[in-house]
């Protein structure tokens, strides 16, 4: 079971080893805050986020760039107001140097202006496109992906390798869903395919059958469900005897979710910035340590936070461990370029968004368990795919009706 860490106990432990000696300024601890969700329906991803960063800090013995780490975890409860309050707590009361998280896009949007005002660097997994596009925040760094970043290559794969001509998309009726499918549609249709229908079940829908019944005769189904919904969807899809191939976004086939699926998920192709079977040193280390401490395999959320930790460490090393100059620290973070991370090589574009690999995986059964097997890697994928950046930014942000359906 998960190692439960009382927040105060952790700080007490860290603080006990981090008492700053008056004469040596450099040993003042660096304070890292985490905004995550540990109660309610979003808790699944939130708990993994914390486990991911704790795995990283433990591996580093709680020392980054020569400074001890004071780690403070805050539970936002999954609401924008809660995120704001906890961000204020971390910045004004706990005086953190950098914030990791929050989990959800609406939490991030609620605190974006505040962290810019407070000049606190923030590394989040939240996928809201405009945070690094049309409404960029200079203190924001995203090492995971925008909503559409993994869907662009997925569409390319669907056209070129799977040879799909027509698809139906289905995803929850909210911004993350719109942005994912907008990205898929743009690339898919630019390469000659056609999205026949776009379906948007409400967030609280318990039964997707009325939507599945509308799929019709297409080559494939594209789904982008998040949280625990992919499990429900695949079950209900199989129940209806549907046989068309299903392909999914980064949350649909997350490695950590695989244990919850039944055999109906076998064969699902999904695109994700992280894949557990990536065979490099840091990922092997990460997966081994994570599995040892928490008994589960890590997924996108845990890996994302581990990688955020690596970025923070690299940034710290660039500024020689001093975080007093906030602008310099942010610049250093944004200029980080790493080759050996659990997701492979990465660096950031001018807007603070990651440029890195996207992995196309297929779910298969191995030794009686479901695993993702990487079948193709798209390298150096940016948030703009192969489009010209200026052109891309001049278009409206992906939404429910944009790109419009070709009828």
């Amino acid at each position, binding site marked *: 079971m998960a190692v*439960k860490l*009382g*927040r*105060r106990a952790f700080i007490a432990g860290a603080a006990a080893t981090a008492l700053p000696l008056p004469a040596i300024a450099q040993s003042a601890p660096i304070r890292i805050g985490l905004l995550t969700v*540990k*109660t*309610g329906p979003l808790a699944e991803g939130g708990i993994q986020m914390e486990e991911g960063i704790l795995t990283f800090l433990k591996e580093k013995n709680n020392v980054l760039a020569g400074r001890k780490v004071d780690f403070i975890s*805050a*539970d936002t*409860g999954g*609401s*924008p*107001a*809660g995120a*704001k*309050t*906890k961000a*204020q*707590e971390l910045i*004004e*009361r706990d005086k953190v140097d950098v914030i990791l998280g929050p989990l959800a*896009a*609406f939490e991030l*949007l*609620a605190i974006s*202006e*505040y962290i810019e005002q407070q000049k606190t660097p923030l590394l989040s997994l939240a996928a*809201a496109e405009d945070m690094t596009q049309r409404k960029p925040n200079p203190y924001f760094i995203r090492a995971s992906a925008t909503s559409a970043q993994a869907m662009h290559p997925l569409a390319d794969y669907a056209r070129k390798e799977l040879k799909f001509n027509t698809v139906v998309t289905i995803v929850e*009726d*909210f*911004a993350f869903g719109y942005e994912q499918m907008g990205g898929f549609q743009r690339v898919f249709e630019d390469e000659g395919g056609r999205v026949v229908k776009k379906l948007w079940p*409400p*967030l609280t829908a318990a039964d997707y059958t009325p939507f599945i019944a509308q799929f019709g005769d297409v080559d494939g189904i594209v789904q982008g469900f998040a949280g625990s919904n992919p499990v429900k969807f695949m079950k209900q899809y199989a129940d209806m005897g549907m046989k068309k191939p299903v392909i999914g976004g980064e949350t649909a086939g997350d490695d950590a979710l695989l244990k919850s699926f039944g055999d109906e998920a076998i064969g699902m192709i999904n695109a994700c910035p992280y894949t557990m079977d990536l065979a490099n040193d840091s990922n092997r280390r990460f997966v081994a340590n994570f599995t040892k401490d928490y008994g589960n395999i890590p997924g996108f959320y845990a890996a994302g936070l581990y990688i955020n930790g690596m970025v923070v460490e690299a940034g710290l090393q660039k500024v020689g461990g001093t975080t007093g100059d906030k602008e310099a620290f942010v610049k250093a973070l944004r200029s980080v370029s790493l080759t050996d991370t659990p997701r492979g090589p990465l660096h950031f574009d001018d807007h603070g968004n990651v440029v890195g690999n996207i992995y196309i995986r297929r779910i298969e059964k191995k030794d009686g368990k479901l695993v993702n097997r990487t079948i193709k890697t798209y390298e150096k994928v940016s948030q703009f795919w192969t489009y010209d950046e200026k052109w891309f930014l001049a278009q409206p942000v992906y*939404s*429910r009706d944009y790109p419009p359906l070709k009828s």
Partner: protein
Amino acid sequence: MKRAAQGLALLALATVPLWAGGSFYVNIMSQVLISAIFAAALDVLVGYAGLISLGHAGLFGVAAYGAAIALGAGIGHFGAIAIALVAALVVTAIFAVLALRTTGIGFIMITLALGQILWGLAYRWIDLTNGDNGLSAASRPAPFGLSLASADSFYFATLILFCIAIAAIAIFTRSPFGASLRGTRDQPRRMTALGYDVWAIRFFACLFSGFWSGVAGILFFYYNQFVSPHALALSASAEVLLMVIAGGSGTLLGPIVGAALVVAMKNVASAYIERWNFTLGAIFVLIVLFMPEGLVPGTARLLRRGSIALRRGAAPAENPR
């Protein structure tokens, strides 16, 4: 004795920036006051009219969105606030006309459904509300040229509005109208027989409640400088209802204490207690077991018993409540 206590409380509230221990805690106090206004507004219906509403976050949210949308359309702060209040009143009137067709569980269910409809509109009417990405405010209003950007200044503005709200609600509930409202709660048929228009009394109480809920919603929007459909969720309606009941409905102090309890647990205790949600639920259950009428009336009862026991030196007769 009571006056002295009230004066002391007011003094403590007025000097919060001095003793709270930093801008973070001042902000928490602002949140407590905003929630207290909302809870007190709901209490007008729950405690004094006997009508439990599970959709009040809808009214709160309509005002917050009204201000946000007006601001986005280029209208200045004061125009936006006016529009928000008008919107809250209009929507409350519609709510009341529909919900007052029944009482009791029917009222609860209609208000729940109406709250959910407003929440759904906030999510889906993206052209107007920007969906779950929410709307933000670039700045806070500056009444009389005084900036409310800092935690302290916003707190004082909130405190002033809080005092006005509580005073208004106190006057309202202690007036003859308030008495007739309590009459409709306790003996609706008798009131009708006596010639009171029970429906009209309840309707007006709804408007009054909706207005102050709207004020709380506008403060909430300016405090966070952001609003999203979460503000209208069923959980938000349930939360404010819990504040009222836990603190003690039908009293003035009850909702305030309830608001302080919930805000403190969510925002402060959650830093120290990982399972704060469980703890909050447990506190509610304990309140019901030991003080089912609420924290404030329950404490008053215990103090009364205690003082009687001290004076008499013997166990008092069982309090019939």
